[in-house]
């Protein structure tokens, strides 16, 4: 019985324990690590993966996968920056979010109506959106953004960087959608067993399209925040970020085949990635070894989480 409880704890909170373990380890190895200012910086750095990871959680809970988030992020950021130059910040942001949402919804439509696997459909979208970004920007960074736009990525409310606040607000909203609304329940049911969900009267196509639209919207938001942070929209922005987002979701314990998983897990997964990046820098691990360490940590975390499942 005791053994059972232990396993239950690992299954539920293993990832949180891992996060705390990492924090303790880095704190011992570097006195500069566990300071308020460094923690705020880690959270700000994490916000980028967290936005994408939250969107990815919807998609993966619905038994899908979205490989296009990095490219959609770049396209949305570029369009937002482009529109902003001539029509102001507000319309720029709106345009960026609209582009992200539309691209995501389009992937969803392709998946449900043309019956193309999500992996392929979003792989195609990854290429299309990246190409679109290069066409739109002519391969050059979009610069000369209004100075007040910097607030989004670099501003503070009190002592707290704005991206952190935006991340928490996004998390809470997403949490409410997943846990308290009918839609959220349908996401879990569709991912858990799409045939049973359909046979329960759920319009599963709409659920899948919405999931990809949400992922696209959050990719757009990420693109805008990143543009603000970098003072420019980079045509190569977000390359490989889809894998970070997927890693955060999986680290957070969400089942890659859908139907099971919690949003807070994703947030912690994103933090683990952020802490690793920052902490390994703090203790002077060479950048080449950093990637090896990250891979190993992902393996260990997922192995431990699984050991609690059986």
């Amino acid at each position, binding site marked *: 019985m005791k053994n059972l409880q232990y396993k239950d704890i690992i299954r539920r909170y293993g990832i949180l324990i891992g996060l705390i373990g990492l924090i303790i380890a880095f704190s011992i190895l*570097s006195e*500069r690590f566990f*300071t308020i*200012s*460094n923690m705020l*910086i880690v959270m*700000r*750095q994490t916000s*980028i993966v967290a936005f994408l990871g939250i969107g990815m959680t919807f998609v993966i809970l619905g038994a899908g996968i979205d490989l296009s988030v990095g490219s959609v992020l770049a396209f949305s950021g570029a369009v937002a920056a482009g529109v902003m130059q001539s029509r102001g910040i507000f319309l720029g942001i709106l345009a960026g979010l609209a582009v992200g949402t539309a691209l995501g919804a389009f992937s969803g439509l392709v998946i449900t109506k043309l019956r193309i696997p999500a992996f392929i459909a979003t792989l195609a979208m990854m290429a299309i959106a990246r190409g679109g970004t290069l066409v739109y920007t*002519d*391969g*050059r*960074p979009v*610069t000369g953004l209004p100075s007040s736009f*910097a607030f989004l*990525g*670099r501003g503070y409310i009190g002592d707290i960087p704005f991206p952190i606040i935006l991340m928490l607000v996004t998390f809470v909203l997403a949490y409410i959608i997943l846990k308290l609304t009918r839609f959220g329940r349908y996401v879990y049911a569709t991912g858990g067993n799409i045939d049973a969900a359909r046979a329960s009267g759920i319009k599963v196509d709409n659920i899948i399209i919405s999931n990809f639209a949400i992922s696209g919207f959050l990719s757009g938001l990420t693109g805008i925040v*990143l543009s603000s*942070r*970098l*003072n*420019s929209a*980079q*045509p*190569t*922005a*977000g*390359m*490989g970020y889809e894998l970070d987002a997927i890693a955060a979701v999986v680290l957070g314990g969400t089942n890659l085949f859908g139907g099971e998983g919690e949003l807070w897990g994703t947030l912690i997964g994103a933090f683990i990635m952020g802490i690793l*990046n*920052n902490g390994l*820098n*703090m203790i*002077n691990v*060479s*950048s*080449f070894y950093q990637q090896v360490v990250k891979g190993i940590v992902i393996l260990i975390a997922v192995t431990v989480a699984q050991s609690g499942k059986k």
Partner: protein
Amino acid sequence: MKKLLLALFLVAFLGVSVFASTMTVGLSVSTLNNPFFVILRDGAIEQAKVLDIDLVVMDAQNDPAKQMSDIEDLVQKKVDVILLNPTDADALVPAVEDANKAGIPLLTIDRSVNGGDVALHIASDNVKGGEMAGAYTVEQLGEKGIVVELEGITGASAARERGQGFDTYIAEFSGIKLAAKQTADFDRAKGMSVMENILQAQPKIDAVFAQNDEMALGAVQAIKAAKRQDEMFVVGFDAVPDALNAIKAGDMKATIAQQPWMMGVLGVMNGYLVVSGVELGIEFIPVPLKVITE
């Protein structure tokens, strides 16, 4: 040049006499996937050893967002000086401003940034380098021939400037015709595939100028595969070890030596001077270039 010598002297003097301290220099490199920057880093490491100071190297993997985070981490670590080899001129401005705010002096190497306070910029004059490549090519061709050019990442300052120097120079010779100019993103594999396409399209080529050695080496592969190596010669840029070997083997004709090792050495050295409170009195140290043909 005199100032440079003076600086060297000062370093030698200060290094052995005044400080035996533990100073930390942070070096943020745009990518370590390119031998050029690996050599730059190695120069920096070597010089840090000479001066007996700590050096922390971070690899941005060509992602401005990652480099931004790296700089933030360096600021958190409270390093004494930051050497920045930026991935993008605009994107890293906020990072430079962060360092400024924290009172940490910052030097840029090889590429510049478009804002913030930079204590010193250390780089080669890429326009000049492009001109040197152009002059060498024109001379070898006897002022007459068909030339193609492989460009670096569109919009990157190095690509723009090298291309500008080369193009302006050869434009003055009516016998030289620039038949094709295509981008291969500073990448060896792309250099090869782009060159393959050009070889298909151009029946006669006398010389190839690639804006870096990686692309030049890719082009050499394509030319050899097409068995047209006797028809044309290849000029690169950067003088990475592979390119020097290729020149020795006769596969490449020349490259423009950028001396990345020197950049790394100068970066650490001047960072050391800045932290030690020495007024440099200059904002830019040009690292000399030379044409290497053997």
